[in-house]
């Protein structure tokens, strides 16, 4: 019995001193991040032995709350990344110095100055200066956005190496924990360390954990179910060039030698946030600005080419013509694409700011998907053309296509662009191509004119009403229809000056004749008895090619014999007709039904809404994470007051246990002295 008392006492001493030690552990780790408090569970010894033993050291935590915190951390990190990145876009769009609408206002103001007085060289110089400034604003915008894209690449690399370091650590921990568990030692602090690592990992990428042996080894899986860490092995993540567009990087998961693309499976977390920002906000914004630059420069050029400059020559391109978009082929493609493959434009006003994917589905069949809304163009629904040159003309809504029998490639036109695929052999099924018609527009815009005298602000044609005209007819508008590089007006002359002569009215309807006045002493009749309708444009065609050259609109009724001479506007340097036409482009519906600045405003509203949504998510996620962390801490966090009370409790028990030993000693002494 007495030896029982000694052993009971000793056991009690041990148990209580262990309990005290763990209370001390809790108290000293009160500020340790991720520390889970431990409590000591006592249990009685198995009968017939008496005494107390430590049953286990329990780690007080809630598995579900821990995993909740990880998920909420991922969501928050994703929002934080997106909010940081969108801040730049926000400032760019709204700041007076970088905002494209403000730059356009200045350009059009300068143009109106030239409308007032086109002869004054200073006005012309101001137009060129503002045009140059507008070009810089476009390029700057694009440069900053592209910089953001490469920043995303750099940041992704950093994140990926952090992820790899963490997963390697997790794998090691799994092994260490396994060893300790096997030898029966307390590995609670290693469990804490492992949980902290997973929390840090979930900041970068969404993960989940599974365990088949009660928590000893833990498998970390991605949102898609792919294992990242399984027992002692960690898979590796790598940043790889995008396919087919290398600048749009992808994340690959390597478990061994081969990698698989997990860019779409990143879930939330910083990496997911970056990629979501890139795909949903950054790239569409680049496409929109690119399209604006394309449409702006092309429509300005088209109008500018219809005017004449101070030297009497037809206008050249005001802005550097942007002729090509970007296309890329998937690296796994088997079709050999020739260098003559091109992505060009037939009508920039039809461009959507979307990327397109071309997939070869069979012999002379392919499918084009518009990536912004998923709309699919099938090649068998497209209008077939009989030659490559006809493809860009009168393109129907579903597109037009020409299959080249020689090269087996094809030319297709839809949504404003033409894609001409030249191949050395038949395109192979399942091959993919990415078309980006608008993304490089803002990068490629440039000013092509530096000499103010070359600004084509005047009309190439002059209409002179005859002195004796007695009717009320006046010229409302004269519009050039063919301002192309091959226009017959280019050599600085009108080969065929014409005179419109009105005939007497028959039943109130006036008709007119048109005479070729190349030789004023011998006018030649080219059109007779054309019906005159006030306000209706009269189209005049080129003598040689019969293409529509220009049209003149006359208003009000004439008197018989009234005549109007149309000739080249030689020395017409004070004329501002073309400057006015260019200035009026500011309010024309040029970008798929919107004016330039309205299209910009739409992008502004879109980015603003997205930024607002991100901000709201950020605030919400911050609150959600706080609340789940609080919930977790209330379970596993150390409360000093509670530990203080426990300290007293175990101290007293310890003191009481020492008394047992003292009692035993007293009994033993009594026994010994009794026997003597």
């Amino acid at each position: 019995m007495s030896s029982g008392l000694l052993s009971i006492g000793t056991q009690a001493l041990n148990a209580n001193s262990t309990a005290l030690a763990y209370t001390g552990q809790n108290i000293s780790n009160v500020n340790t991040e991720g520390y889970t408090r431990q409590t000591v569970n006592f249990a009685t010894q198995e009968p017939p032995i008496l005494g107390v033993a430590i049953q286990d050291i329990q780690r007080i935590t809630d598995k579900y709350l821990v995993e909740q915190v990880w998920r909420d951390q991922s969501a928050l990190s994703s929002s934080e990344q997106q909010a940081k990145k969108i801040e730049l876009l926000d400032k760019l769009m709204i700041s007076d110095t970088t905002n494209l609408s403000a730059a356009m206002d200045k350009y059009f103001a300068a143009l109106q100055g030239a409308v007032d007085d086109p002869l004054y060289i200073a006005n012309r110089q101001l137009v060129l200066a503002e045009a140059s400034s507008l070009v810089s604003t476009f390029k700057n915008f694009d440069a900053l956005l592209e910089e953001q894209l490469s920043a995303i690449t750099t940041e992704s690399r950093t994140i990926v190496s952090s992820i790899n370091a963490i997963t390697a650590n997790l794998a090691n921990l799994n092994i260490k924990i396994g060893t300790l568990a096997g030898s029966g030692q307390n590995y609670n602090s290693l469990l804490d360390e492992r949980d902290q690592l997973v929390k840090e990992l979930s900041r970068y990428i969404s993960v989940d954990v599974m365990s088949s042996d009660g928590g000893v080894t833990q498998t970390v899986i991605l949102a898609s179910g792919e294992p990242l860490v399984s027992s002692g092995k960690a898979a590796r993540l790598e940043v790889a060039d995008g396919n087919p567009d290398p600048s749009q990087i992808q994340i690959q998961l390597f478990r061994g030698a081969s990698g698989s693309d997990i860019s779409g499976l990143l879930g939330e977390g910083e990496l997911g946030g970056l990629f979501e920002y890139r795909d949903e906000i950054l790239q569409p914004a680049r496409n929109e600005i690119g399209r604006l630059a394309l449409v702006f420069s092309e429509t300005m050029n088209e109008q500018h080419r219809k005017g004449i400059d101070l030297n009497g020559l037809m206008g050249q391109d005001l802005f550097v013509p942007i002729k090509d978009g970007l296309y890329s082929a998937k690296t796994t493609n088997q079709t050999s694409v020739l260098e003559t493959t091109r992505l060009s434009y037939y009508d920039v006003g039809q461009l959507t700011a979307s990327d397109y994917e071309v997939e070869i589905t069979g012999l002379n069949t392919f499918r084009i998907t518009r990536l912004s809304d998923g709309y699919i163009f099938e090649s068998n629904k497209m209008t077939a053309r009989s030659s490559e040159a006809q493809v860009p003309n009168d393109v129907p809504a579903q597109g037009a296509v020409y299959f080249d029998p020689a090269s087996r490639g094809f030319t297709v036109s839809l949504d404003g662009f033409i894609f001409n695929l030249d191949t050395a052999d038949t395109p192979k099924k399942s091959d993919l191509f990415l078309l980006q018609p608008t993304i490089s527009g803002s990068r490629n815009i440039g000013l092509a004119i530096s000499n103010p005298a070359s600004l084509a602000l005047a009309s190439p044609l002059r209409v002179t009403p005859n002195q004796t005209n007695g009717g009320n007819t006046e010229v409302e508008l004269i519009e050039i229809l063919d301002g192309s590089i091959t226009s017959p007006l280019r050599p600085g002359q009108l080969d065929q000056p014409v005179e419109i002569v009105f005939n007497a009215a028959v039943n109130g309807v006036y008709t007119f004749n048109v005479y070729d006045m190349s030789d004023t002493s011998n006018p030649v009749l080219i059109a007779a008895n054309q019906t005159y309708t006030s306000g209706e444009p009269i189209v005049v065609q080129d003598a040689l090619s019969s293409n529509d050259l220009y049209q003149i609109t006359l208003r009000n009724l004439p008197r018989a014999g009234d005549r109007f001479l149309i000739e080249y506007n030689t020395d017409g340097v004070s004329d501002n007709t073309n400057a006015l036409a260019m200035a009026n482009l500011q309010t024309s519906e040029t970008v798929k039904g919107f004016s330039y600045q309205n299209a910009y405003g739409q992008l502004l509203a879109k980015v603003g809404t997205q930024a607002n949504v991100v901000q709201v998510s950020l605030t919400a996620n911050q609150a959600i994470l706080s609340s789940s962390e609080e919930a977790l801490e209330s379970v596993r966090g150390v409360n000093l007051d509670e530990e203080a009370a426990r300290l007293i409790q175990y101290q007293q028990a310890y003191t009481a246990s020492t008394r047992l030993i003292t009692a035993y000693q007293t009994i033993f002494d009594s026994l010994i002295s009794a026997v003597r």
Partner: protein
Amino acid sequence: MRISTTQIYTEANRNMMEGQSELAKIQNKISSGKNFTSLTEDPVGANRVVNLKRELARFDTFQSNIDATRRRLALEETTISDINTALDRARELTIQAANNTLTDSDRLGISYEFEQIVDYVANLMNTRDAKGEYLFSGSKGTTQPYQLSSGRYSFKGDDGQREIQIAGSVYLKSTDSGREIFNSIKGDPVVSQFGLDASTSSMTTTVSDATLYEKFVGLHGDLTLTKTAAGLVTLTDSTGQIVSDVNNVPISGIAPAGGVYTIELEGSTLNFTLGAVGAAESTRITYSRDDTNILNALLDSFDALQTSADSDPAALAAFNLQMATMLGQLDVAQAKLSETTASIGARQKAVDYSEYSNTDFKLLTESTLSSIVDLDYAAASTDLAKRQLALQAAYASFAKIQGLSLFEYI
């Protein structure tokens, strides 16, 4: 509910941080005076701001267009007024010179002043604006509009007029062409034909009454004379109808003797010499007037004044005719000048009205912009006080709870 020690501090910390950041945001708004500084805070508002700023920029542009137009029209007005004054003097001189009691030397004296007036008016017609552009040469701004050659002035500009936008949908012509203003005098009538074979045929014309003939042309347009191979001549008008001559005889199927044929129309006589029978011919007959201006009219009078007419009744009669013609031409010219002045005045009024409405619209736009962009200081100051209070309370409450621990008591 259980709470851990660190939680107490984390919570308090978070609240204080939040309080500070909110306070900083409000302070930023107050010091910048702007309601929002990023798209995130108000995306719809930001979009409206961009549109409103564009409207304001356009109003500024319209205002500079208006200023430029005003200057231009004012210069035109004074120039035309000066020309009118000179023509008044020319009129006085003409009336004075028409007095038949004057002698050659008197008339010679008057002619010198006429010469001065011509030079003065020509100079005014060739006025350039401050930047060196000719006012009245239409769109040929670097070409002098009235140039002297062989003793007479001809108009070398064109009819172009510059259009300027002075409001959203208001366009105004800011320039006038000299041809419109100064070439209002009707020159000699010219009847031309296009189509006769010059080696065999020709046409000569006499216009006895230009006004009458012009009216005739106004009803019929260009005329076409056709001669069939058999030698029959028909005259049709621009609608293909057969024309009757002044005696209402339709000119159709006439066989001129020897190919010589005279047609008498209202106000003019056309004499044709047509080619041999056997060849078909057709020709188009058009009508126009010589382009002339008041300077040339004045020079005609100058020449007349310099011509000796003493004791020469024929010369005197010719002189008197020229003086009478001069008065008539001055009437026409000055009527046109006054018409132009009225047109300039009307345009100046239009410019003024546009300026008023532009100013009104601009004011409206600015106040709309301000209501979106500018900070409501009253609300912001209240907010500032509120947040200040909240932060102070957070500090005070933290001080109170942070000293509480069981360890203080054991």
